[in-house]
């Protein structure tokens, strides 16, 4: 575990992951689902027919002049239809045609999302995240105001938020990858997952910062770096145990949970690992870089 103090190894690793994630976000882009893009999604189950004629469905949709649609089989006897827009009235006539030409059916799901709603969802998520970050910095700066000089309580807040952004970007990057190769779509539940990961990341970071604060006060004779490394070792058991318990729950959800939350749980799973990692190797180590800079500057002046 000697690697804990090799901060440049971890910075390089994080740097590579972040650059890769940003490049993927930029070039491949997130595979946005209905919630963000707007559009229609219909899931139809055919009750008697096992042999679903996708061609026939395509034909019917063309007859109704549905724009840019896509038909996908799901399971044995269900299909997903995605399209730019299918109104409920249109869908009813389409279903009538399908019943006549293919067989009895059951509409399992119908979603139709307009562009204003979807734009609003993303915008509100961004803004609340930005605002939450500012308040986290302010709160930590306040909660850690007693750290002895020249350590700066503001630095604690900023480092925690940098770790938070780090986690969010890598998680997004990971889902760009999943979207590209496994067709995973980003929905509003994914936003919740990102928020959960961010909440966990900050929580985890603050626990370690709390120990750093305590050691800085208790062992003021030690160097700042030593106090940080000591704190990391002292909280390591707890970090591992806690993330392990969270991962147990998520693993159970992944194995036994419903299909509808699968990717959501994957996001939490990956996020928990990144969040634990970043508290130890990013937030705390950045703190020491920041601190050394302060000392250098004060020596110069």
């Amino acid at each position: 575990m000697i690697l804990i103090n090799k901060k440049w190894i971890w910075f390089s690793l994080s740097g590579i992951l972040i650059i890769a994630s940003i490049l993927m976000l930029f070039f491949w882009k997130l595979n946005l689902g209905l919630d963000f893009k707007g559009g229609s999604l219909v899931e139809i189950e055919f009750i008697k027919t096992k042999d679903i004629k996708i061609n026939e469905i395509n034909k019917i949709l063309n007859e109704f002049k549905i724009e840019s649609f896509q038909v996908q089989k799901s399971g044995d006897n269900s299909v997903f239809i995605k399209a730019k827009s299918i109104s409920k009235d249109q869908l009813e006539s389409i279903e009538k045609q399908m019943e006549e030409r293919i067989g009895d059916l059951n509409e399992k799901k119908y979603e139709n999302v307009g562009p204003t709603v979807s734009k609003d969802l993303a915008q509100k998520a961004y803004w609340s995240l930005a605002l939450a970050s500012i308040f986290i910095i302010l709160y930590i700066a306040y909660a850690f105001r007693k750290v002895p000089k020249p350590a700066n309580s503001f630095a604690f807040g900023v480092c925690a938020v940098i770790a938070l952004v780090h986690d969010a970007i890598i998680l997004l990057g990971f889902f760009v990858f999943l979207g590209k190769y496994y067709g995973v779509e980003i929905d509003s539940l994914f936003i919740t997952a990102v928020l959960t990961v961010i909440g966990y990341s900050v929580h985890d970071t603050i626990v370690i910062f709390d120990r750093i604060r305590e050691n800085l006060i208790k062992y003021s004779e030690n160097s700042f770096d030593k106090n940080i490394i000591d704190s990391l070792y002292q909280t390591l058991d707890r970090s591992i145990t806690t993330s392990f318990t969270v991962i147990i729950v998520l693993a159970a959800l992944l194995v036994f949970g419903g299909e509808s939350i699968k990717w959501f749980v994957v996001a939490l799973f990956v996020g928990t690992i990144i969040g634990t990692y970043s508290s130890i190797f990013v937030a705390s180590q950045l703190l020491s870089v920041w601190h050394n800079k302060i000392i250098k500057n004060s020596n110069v002046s």
Partner: protein
Amino acid sequence: MKSLWIKLIFILILLGVAIWIDLPNGFNNVGIKKQPKIIKGLDLVGGVHIAYEADMKDVVVENRDAAMSSLVNVIDKRINSLGVAEPIIQSRKYGDKYGIIVELPGVKDINQAIKMIGKTALLEFKEMTEKGEWQKTNLTGRDLQKADVSSNQQTGEPVVSLKFNNEGAKKFGEITKKNLQKPLAIFLDNEMISAPTVQAEISTGEAIIEGQFSIEDAKNLSIQLNAGALPVPIKIAEQRNVGATLGNDSIQKSLLAGAIGLFLVIIFMIFLYRLPGLIASLALAFYGILIFAIFKISSITPWGITLTLAGLAGFILSVGMAVDANILIFERAKEEYREGKNIFDSYLIGFDRAWSSIRDSNSSSIITGLILFWFGTGSIRGFALVLIIGVIISMFTAITVSRTLLLLITKSRLIKYKFLFALNRKKVNK
């Protein structure tokens, strides 16, 4: 010591009340009409979610908020007349746009519902300009007091009779005065229904719509007008029908998975920390019982909490934090014991030292939760609400249940069996 016993009694009473609420038939016969129960969101029970966009171009900016609240009222009345149980009707504003969200859980035949909601029944009176075009007057369905079905005295055809309120009567008087011997058209949902010629100034505030209605049509129209015309036209911006089976399947599986996960956590905690691990598990069970009770009891207050998949995510996160509080205390106690303190002091001090990290980390979660709740929409709000409640309750269980039980046990005779505590004085290698 005495205060610990008092706390234990308090905990047991609270536990008893929570269990009583949680029981299927709990919290009945207390003189409250409403039955408490967990309110499940659409993604869990199925139903329909519709987001409407309100067209505000004809409403001046100052009146828009008022128009929205009356829009919510009207839609609420219409849905209630359909007998849908527990509908959710919320207005919301995004940018300069206004919208309404309607959620009807468990509704099977939704088309009827959607048709009823969407009927704007926008009643307008238009006068003719000199160029021969119809021009809006300031008299609309908003000025209506009552609409009724009656019949034309000469032809016997069904008509809809209107009675305006005071202001409407005044407006109607002015309009009829101004348009004597000219046509005055009645428009419903931008469609002209009739355009009689004004024969005399009418100041009684009564009018009749003739439109070759069937009795059925006239009745429906009067119901719509009475339920209140929508003050602004709306259109569907988003619609989601969630099949009940899909919802049911996912909740059943996810609940089972959650239970398995929690069970594994309990085994892991007991394996790792032994007796304190068992106490943490009890605290966790207490936490679950309390949260469930709060969710259930909230349903009889105006602030009912709706449980959704996003809410379950918030719950998982808060469970993680609740377990973490215990782990923090135990790990700290381990350290204190290593430094030579006795078991009781190790836990007492371990708790005090761990408290600042529990407090600070959870406070930041609450702050994040509050901001998300304030600014977020739909599922994000559900997530935030559960997170806030979960974190507050988890801090409470850490302070009360974990601490009280731990200190009582370390004061008891069980302390003789050191292996129960998984503590040792070996220095760890760094």
